[in-house]
């Protein structure tokens, strides 16, 4: 086994998918000649040609809808909308078509589509390029939301998403693109959450770009860190198991606090683990402001290891 970056893992996954299945094609803005905004699809145009690594105009609604149509027509499209911020322009097709078609048609039409997008803040890109809306998408039945936080998942989740007969939104974290890790080459699932660090004193639940922050905080407070990995449908079994042991829980979510994914996790703990808990569940989310440009303000707006440690300490006060 050799260590590769998260970015390289994503690239290898795309390469493998295109190599394995003729029905797979990648389309999106600058995926081809430019090599991908984050260089994730670099070299793939040369290898697979413009039909299968298809540059699109800046038409998120149009080409996401075309991806849905192509999926209905027998292909296995991978649509890249560059970032979650621009996915808002494609929202109608994702929510009103991809997510609904199977149920609304009485089970006649599945949409085997993968939509990839980068998400998250932390690179001083200011308010319009720093959204974390994965949890928001997680509100919608009919789609699956996956959030690779490790190099292993960055390498393996695409194949699992393509094997899924329904629409999968795959969120990628530029904040993690340079992180390195080992890749086993084993298949990964897109159904379960996983313990990333064992600990005894508190359960820290997180996903995506916040995983390294949660792991750092856990070092200081003997935390057990659980990576949700899949934001819809949620798998809270390992969380419930962990809480039985630690009796305390903090949820870390880069999304905004109100009505967010953290709130959903907390509500489920309330429903399913109320009597296991020795303290109210706490959460560390983004402050409810547009993400600002200035570095110190951006840092203040986002979950940080210190905030997580403080929240844990609050549970023992």
């Amino acid at each position, binding site marked *: 086994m050799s260590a590769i970056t998260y970015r390289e893992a994503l690239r290898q996954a795309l390469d493998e998918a295109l190599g394995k299945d003729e029905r797979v*094609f990648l389309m999106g803005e600058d995926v081809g000649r430019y090599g991908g905004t984050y260089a994730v699809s670099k070299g793939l145009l040369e290898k697979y040609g413009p*039909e299968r690594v298809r540059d*699109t*105009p800046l*038409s998120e*609604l*149009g*080409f*996401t*809808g*075309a*991806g*849905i*149509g*192509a*999926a*209905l*027509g*027998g*292909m296995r*499209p991978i649509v890249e909308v560059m970032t979650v911020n621009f996915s808002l322009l494609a929202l*109608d*097709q994702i929510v*009103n*078509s991809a997510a609904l*078609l*199977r*149920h*609304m*048609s*009485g*089970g*006649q*039409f*599945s949409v085997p589509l993968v939509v990839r997008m980068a998400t998250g803040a932390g690179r001083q890109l200011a308010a319009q390029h720093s959204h974390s809306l994965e949890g928001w998408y997680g509100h919608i*039945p*009919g789609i*699956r939301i996956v959030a690779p936080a490790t190099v292993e998942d960055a390498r393996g989740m695409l194949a699992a998403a393509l094997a*899924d*007969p*329904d629409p999968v939104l795959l969120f990628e974290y530029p904040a993690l693109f340079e992180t390195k890790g080992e890749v086993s080459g084993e298949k990964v699932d897109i159904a379960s959450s996983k313990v990333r660090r064992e600990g005894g004193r508190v359960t820290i639940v997180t996903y995506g770009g916040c995983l390294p922050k949660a792991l750092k905080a856990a070092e200081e407070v003997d935390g057990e860190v659980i990576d949700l990995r899949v934001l819809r449908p949620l798998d809270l079994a390992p969380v419930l198991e962990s809480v039985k042991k630690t009796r305390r829980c903090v949820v870390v979510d880069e999304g905004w606090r109100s009505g967010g994914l953290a709130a959903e996790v907390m509500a489920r703990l309330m429903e399913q683990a109320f009597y296991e808990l020795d303290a109210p569940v706490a959460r560390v989310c983004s402050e409810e402001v547009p993400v600002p440009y200035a570095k110190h303000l951006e840092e203040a707006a986002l979950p940080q290891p210190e905030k997580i440690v403080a929240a844990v300490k609050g549970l023992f006060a």
Partner: protein
Amino acid sequence: MKVPPPPAGKVKLPAKLSLALLADMLRIRRMEEKCAELYGQQKIRGFLHLYIGEEAVAAGAMRALEPEDNIVATYREHGHALLRGVSMDAIMAEMYGKQEGCSRGRGGSMHLFDAQTRFYGGNAIVAGGLPLAAGLALAAKLQKEKRVTACFFGEGAVAEGAFHESMNLAALWGLPVAYLCENNLYAMGTALERSEAQTDLCVKAASYGMATLKVDGMDVVAVHEAARRAREHAAKKGPIFVEFQTYRFRAHSMFDPELYREKSEVEAWKTRGPIHTFTARLKAQGDLTEERFLELDAAAQAEVDEAVAFAEAGTWEPAEHLTADVYTPQ
């Protein structure tokens, strides 16, 4: 508003095809008249958008398409589904909300689907079907399939971004798709000239490098000829936009008090009604007798009666099945 003269009827189709087109229009008309009645009786609920007055478009177009083609339609799609080959029984049962319906009662009037006839729905978001159609056409092209995708939509859709994005993608990629615009002059209650700076829809499509056709949508023969040419163009050369100029005789939906247009305008358009003008033309040509017309009409009515009986006898999907097919069973 100036109403164009009745269809001129220069082209003559074989008598057999002509009678089939007339029968098609009658089937839609009688089915929808019954739907309006059933809506009054609260047998059909939700939104109900009738196609009455516009039947020539679905009739002329569907007979120009091939079984392997894909169809994408709107929430005013009862007629398209019927003429594509979805049984009237299954359509009526769907409107009743019964599980024998073509979408198992989950879709209703606005969401008729049928995999067997490649009928990709009943899309109730204006212009929502246009990108989908581009994608279906892209899939066909990539898989080197012969099929064409026919996408029906109203003129209200041309104001949406999805229209412009789809025209561009289709033309840029040379996709085998026919965009069939049913211009009935009103987007719900908003007249075309009140909502578009450029009211010539073909000019809009042409600006993307699309081939275009403008057709009298009240003349089933003209529609059929245009749709035949459009299909051929889509299959051999790439995307085409066709504007069918038509008119909706009934309200937008059953909730519409029609405050936005004069009764006289509706009456004037009714003189151009696709069924009676075509009937008169066929009689004048000697292709149709009154007796034969009554037979066709009676057959349509009998089909409606059977469909209603089928829907009445239909069953409700057990509520325990509610969550089935949110995801595909694996």
